[in-house]
């Protein structure tokens, strides 16, 4: 049997002061930057027009720009995409967007006309056009915000059902940490907030929560087994016991993400990047945020006398049916 990181007894949590500083150094400047300069939002959220155009031979970007200016498309942004003959034209200026309230395609057809007058139609091809009216953009913004809030609440409810409150609070803090870290990461990576990025953040929340739950599951089990061990050691033991699983699962997930990042194309790259960061921060928070917060809570609100071991916690958190099942399982094991 080939085993890695088997039976380790690493004192992970000892490093919590250093890791807290590291995570603060990463997250806080990013959040300040967001507060000051804000995010870039995609066409879906702001409304506007996006066109992906490929030319037969690389055009002069200056000329392209002046063509659009002359056509009256205000402040259009032109960005090379992949190669020097493929471009993304983005008309996201509020004035352009306002014009689209009459008909979403008005700006797109202006751009097409301008391109047709400047270049011969056989010299370029429009690969993709997205035109979003201001009303639709506003609605989606609300919906996305709503989605993140709802998923957070749903997660809370699930944790409240699944764990005793100390564990639940710690898991929530860990998840909040992951969200804030990811927000900072999005800013650092200069990603624009699009629906696909929001999708990435939500998937990341689920993934990182998984990780925390699996470690806490183990900790809860260990609390039941050993009675006289301090929580600090039990937490460390839980992290160590789940270490092989963590390494394996994170590796396979990361491998798939690497494959997507390398070969999956430009459209889903933002999603892939967010998820890659999500795997890292999810792993980090389930070792250095959730257990540390749990320890802090235990110190602040210790369990009642005679309940130090956490057995009471288990009993409270488990439904009678679950307890019964466990007892039966135990009986079976003994019988064997």
């Amino acid at each position: 049997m080939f085993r890695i990181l088997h039976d380790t007894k690493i004192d992970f949590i000892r490093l919590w002061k250093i890791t807290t500083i590291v995570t603060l150094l990463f997250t806080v400047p990013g959040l300040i930057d967001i507060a000051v300069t804000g995010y870039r939002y995609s066409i879906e959220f702001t409304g506007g027009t996006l066109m992906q155009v490929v030319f037969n031979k690389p055009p002069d970007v200056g000329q392209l720009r002046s063509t659009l200016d002359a056509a009256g498309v205000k402040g259009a942004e032109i960005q090379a995409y992949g190669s020097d003959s493929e471009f993304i034209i983005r008309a996201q200026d509020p004035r352009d967007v306002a014009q689209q309230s009459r008909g979403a395609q008005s700006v797109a057809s202006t751009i097409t006309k301008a391109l047709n007058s400047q270049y011969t139609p056989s010299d370029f091809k429009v690969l993709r056009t997205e035109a979003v009216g201001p009303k639709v953009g506003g609605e989606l913004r609300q919906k996305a915000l709503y989605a993140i809030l709802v998923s957070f609440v749903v997660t809370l409810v699930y944790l409240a059902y699944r764990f005793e409150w100390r564990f639940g609070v710690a898991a929530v803090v860990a998840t909040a940490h992951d969200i804030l870290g990811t927000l900072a990461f999005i800013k650092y990576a200069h990603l624009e907030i699009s629906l696909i990025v929001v999708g990435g953040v939500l998937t990341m929340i689920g993934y990182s929560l998984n990780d925390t739950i699996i470690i806490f599951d183990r900790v809860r089990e260990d609390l039941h087994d050993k009675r006289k061990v301090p929580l600090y050691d039990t937490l460390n033991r839980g992290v160590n016991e789940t270490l092989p699983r963590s390494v394996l699962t994170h590796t396979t997930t990361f491998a798939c993400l690497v494959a997507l990042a390398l070969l999956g194309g430009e459209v889903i790259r933002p999603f892939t990047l967010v998820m890659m960061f999500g795997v890292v921060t999810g792993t980090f928070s389930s070792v250095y945020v959730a257990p540390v917060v749990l320890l802090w809570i235990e110190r602040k609100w210790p369990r009642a006398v005679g309940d130090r071991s956490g057995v009471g916690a288990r009993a409270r958190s488990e439904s009678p049916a679950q307890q019964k099942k466990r007892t039966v399982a135990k009986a079976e094991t003994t019988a064997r």
Partner: protein
Amino acid sequence: MSNIQYRLLTIVVLIAASIWSLWPRTVSVREQVGGVFHDTSYTRVPLKRGLDLQGGIHLALEVDESKGVVANKAEAIDRALKVVRNRIDEFGVIEPVVQKVGSDRIIVELPGVKDPDRATQLVERSAFLQFQITDKTNALDKTLPRLDQILRSKGYGKAGAATPGAPATADTGGKSAISSLFTPGGDTSKAAAIAKKDTSAAKADTAADTSLLSGATGGPLSRLIQPGQMPGEYYVATSDVPAVTRYLALPEIQAALPPGKTIHWGTTSDVGDGTNVTPLYVVDSKPIITGEYLTDAKPATDPIEGNIVQFTLNSEGGRRFRQETAKHINDYMAIVLDNRVMGRPPVIQSAIGTRGQITMRGQPLQQVQDLALVLRAGALPVPLKVVESREIGASLGADSINDGIRAGLLGVALVILIMVGYYRFSGFLAVIALSLYVLFTLALLAGFDATLTLPGIAGLVLSVGIAVDANVLIFERIREELARGKTVRASIDDGFHHAMTAIIDSNVSTALTALVLFEIGTGPVKGFAVTLLAGISASMVSAIFVVRTFYLLWLSRTRGAQTLSI
């Protein structure tokens, strides 16, 4: 039958059902080729590809309330949905989507369609057809002096005066109209020249009108309008159309317009010296008949008239039409489509029955075909406007599929390498389970008629990585049990048992976020959520049930096995 046999049977049934649901099947599709409908058969895998993968057009439509408030929007949108669906069906697109989203939006998805302007035209056009008799009473001429007076009193038409009604940023068409307001002298002469040219043929008829108008020359509105050749017809230089439109839209002017009459623009035409004129028609507000009685409309080419649309009315419409036209012999009848007069109103020589035609003059054949189509499919009850449009080229979609497949293959290869490299025989079992997982997921997607999108493929690739988590949890647990000195059989049993809570937890938390995403997402992102949900259900079956069965099978084959390769 033993437990193992039941389990194997279940797996075989699941595999068979999956293959059946993914088996390529023949679909018959109504398709339009060169204006004629064909039933074409395609044989393909029943997995719906999203627009981002096959190219096409996505449109979101809403009721356009800029031209007036619609009283019962919910009902109007339902009726509009039917009309749009009819039109799209006639348009001949393979597997179009026309559906209502929320209470006030219609989504139209046209796979493979390349011309967005044409598609937009087709769904946006209200196609409201009516036949109206042109005004014989010179009603507009009589009210023009009053209209001028109203405009003057509001400060229009004076040199250098502000034009409060005009928006500050007029579009390019409007600019010349505004500048013409500032230089009344030059413009009047130009308009007069046009009028002279135009009315030369019908001078005798309209001599009285001309004199009446000349008295009012210099009036802000009358200055721009010249009488035409038939009752109720007027000419406006095309450059003045925006100004006249603006004047006519003023509420005070609206109130002062002759009662029982309606004003429509005609189609612009060139008078020969490079200037365009647009006719303006004053017609009786009450139509003699509307397009609701229309049963058929088809494009045709007439040697004299050029492209035309021939239409047929139903028997009731025909009767009514005959009655009404009999009352209006020698009158001119304007054919009004979407508030615009099509061609020149013909004179009614005798009662007309069930057949008629709309002259399209220089319009290309495709536009004539499209007009015939929208007339057949019925008029929209309310004006619609496009609030969102996405158009993806087919080549981009094909590239996306290839990218997705390549990324998927690499991802799967890496996962196989890691799993077999680390868990050996057990890893191999997990890999077989993984391939079943991919099969089950695709089958679920096909079974629920879900749409595979690019983010959906990403979700599938990602979920391959996550799906092995269940097996990893189980295998690690089995290893621990083995390390405690339990027998292989007991270790496997306990491993599965202990890992179960963690597996359920992790799947539930992922499923919850996927559900939220499904609720908010549009198109591609919804596809991602669906794939994730299908993936979770499939991985529960493959990682737990299938792998467990493999172990049971292995245990029964190797009786007394002492070592498990894990």
